[in-house]
């Protein structure tokens, strides 16, 4: 019933960082079933910087979670950073995510009882491990984003922009190949948001990192190399959740 849609895909000269095929994820509420996301085909090459757009409720967050291995789809194959996530156990996906994938959320999701530095170190602990060099690396990252004098402050003692930068440092501390961001600049005014994004993209380019960023903001999307509209990945399947409000 699903007709594969032929898409003009740039033949990857570099190995693919992300490959999604026929991915479906739906939630059932009693007799009702809600299709949260449907992606027939999505390829992102290593080093690419992609903006993921789409109307609210079309499943952008869900796709990111699937790419991170946090959610397991009902069907379809997922490859991310060289591993088939759909064939891995949960704990293997956890470790894979910790080592190779950095995530930044709209709500930043810092842990309140821990200082800025400790939050970054937590990323290291659950990622590549708490080696002695992780502290030096965490401190260097915080210095780079101008938080050298705020390392020992708790998230509540920081401005929103500073919290955001801590979150970015935490995502980068394991030197991940893939960075997934869910509207990371939603709370920022244009100018600041643009600055932070520029800084991040610079770091990413220098480190040849792949970036997938969900955004509603056309300005931010323009800064990325490519923009993918989730609706166009949906093939012939009717858009079930198109009428939905906020997620």
């Amino acid at each position: 019933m699903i007709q594969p849609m032929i898409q003009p895909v740039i033949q990857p000269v570099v190995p693919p960082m992300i490959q999604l095929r026929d991915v479906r994820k739906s939630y059932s509420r009693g007799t009702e079933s809600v299709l949260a996301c449907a992606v027939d085909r999505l390829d992102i090459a290593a080093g690419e910087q992609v903006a993921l757009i789409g109307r609210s409720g079309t499943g952008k967050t869900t796709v990111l979670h699937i790419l991170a291995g946090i959610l397991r789809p009902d069907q379809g194959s997922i490859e991310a950073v060289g591993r088939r996530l759909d064939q891995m156990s949960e704990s293997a996906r956890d470790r894979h995510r910790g080592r190779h994938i950095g995530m930044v959320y709209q709500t930043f999701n810092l842990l309140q009882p821990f200082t800025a530095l400790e939050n970054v170190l937590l990323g290291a602990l659950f990622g590549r491990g708490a080696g002695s060099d992780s502290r030096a690396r965490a401190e260097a990252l915080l210095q780079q984003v101008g938080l050298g004098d705020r390392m020992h402050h708790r998230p509540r003692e920081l401005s929103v922009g500073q919290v955001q930068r801590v979150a970015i440092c935490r995502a980068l501390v394991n030197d991940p190949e893939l960075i997934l961001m869910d509207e990371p600049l939603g709370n920022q005014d244009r100018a600041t948001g643009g600055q932070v994004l520029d800084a991040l993209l610079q770091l990413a380019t220098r480190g040849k990192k792949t970036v997938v960023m969900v955004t509603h903001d056309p300005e931010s999307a323009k800064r990325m190399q490519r923009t993918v509209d989730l609706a166009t990945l949906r093939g012939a399947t009717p858009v079930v959740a198109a009428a939905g409000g906020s997620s």
Partner: protein
Amino acid sequence: MKLWSISLRNLRIRLVATVLTMASIIVATALYAAILVMAEQTEQRYKGSVGGYQAVVGPKDASQLELVLNTIFNVGEAPGLFPLQVCMDLRSGVGVSRRGQVRYAVPQARGDSVSRFNFPVIATLDEMFSKYEWQKAPLVFAAGGPFQFGWDDLMAFATELAAHENGKRAGEVPLPPRPLLKKEWCKAVVGARVARTLGLQLGAVVTPVHGKMGEFGFHEHPEAACEIVGILAPTNSPLDTTIFLPLSTHLLIDGHEAGVFVVEIPPGKTPDDAKKLPVKPGQIALTAIIVDPKDHFGARILRNDFGTRPDAQVAWPQDVVPKFLRQIGNAADALAVIAWLVLLVAAVSITVAIYNTMNERRREIAIMRSLGATRLQILVIIVGEAALLSFFGALLGLLTCHGAACLLQATVEDMTGVYLDWLTFRPWEAWLLLGVTGLGAIAGLLPAVKGSMTEVADNLAADY
């Protein structure tokens, strides 16, 4: 950052709940440790101290346990008096001694204490230091030597004292003189701890007191001030807390309301009438005789002899003490069960306390999972919280126990003769620490499993 430092942080941010839960662990551990310490020290005190066929002779109507505890372990008051004649028989070829079956029979009279520490005073013979054996060896002096007062001295003294008493009772004129308190009798030998506590050295003087300080009837006996001629080497036994005087000194001290003679009240007479009856040297009052039969056979004869004697009985420490220890052991076991229950309740309170935080921590757990934490790591963090809490609780509990032992040391020793050694840490304390920590870890398992089941994607978003 380490997993355990996350656990520690979680405990710290819920400080009130942590402290309250820990308090129950502290109480349970301290209680358990206290019971173990008491049982252990009691056993140590009483077990090693009885050996051979050593027996204690005492008044007929006393309980054997009371007799042994008082005579060997300085617990409580002497249970009663009996006549010197018993000792004379034991030594003079009547009954058991006839066959040379008794190695020694040392008479003792417990009397007034010395100093506010209530160190017991035992009036006895110099045989206490030449014949009596503690754990199969005579007592060793750290300094000085014994006082001189032997059996023959006692016999001569007793005769003189009885003559004086009879003269007084019959209203004789001239009254035979009361024996003088000779200078060479005003000597004392003290145990190691007496010397240490009171800061006594050879040549120092101790003055016996009557009664307990602050109580009615308390008075000193300056006329019987005794010079210390010997300090015993430490034995870590009740001997360490004892002061030894010659029997004569004790008998010449004023204030023995009942008199120094044991007088049977004949049927139909009043106690006042009895005070008029003539006395014999053999009626001088003793509180105990320490007897050592040579062997099993001697012990049998001694047992038979005293089976029919109306004025005294024989008690066997090696029978009485293990029975006593078993009773203590049973009581300790019962208390230990209670302590275990308290510990169990404390463990349940840990489970409840942590379980209740799981809902508010769903987001935090989801965030850690999104950073790459596995379910197992989440489990370890939460179990670690419970274990750390229990560990610190148990540690504080043990310290509490030692602190309490330090504070109560004097009282407990006074009441039971058990010396609480609060400074030594014993191997089982490490096991208790480990055990309580393990129990806490188990208590943390239920909330930990719940925490590790936390759904990640659903809980990552902020609450609306």
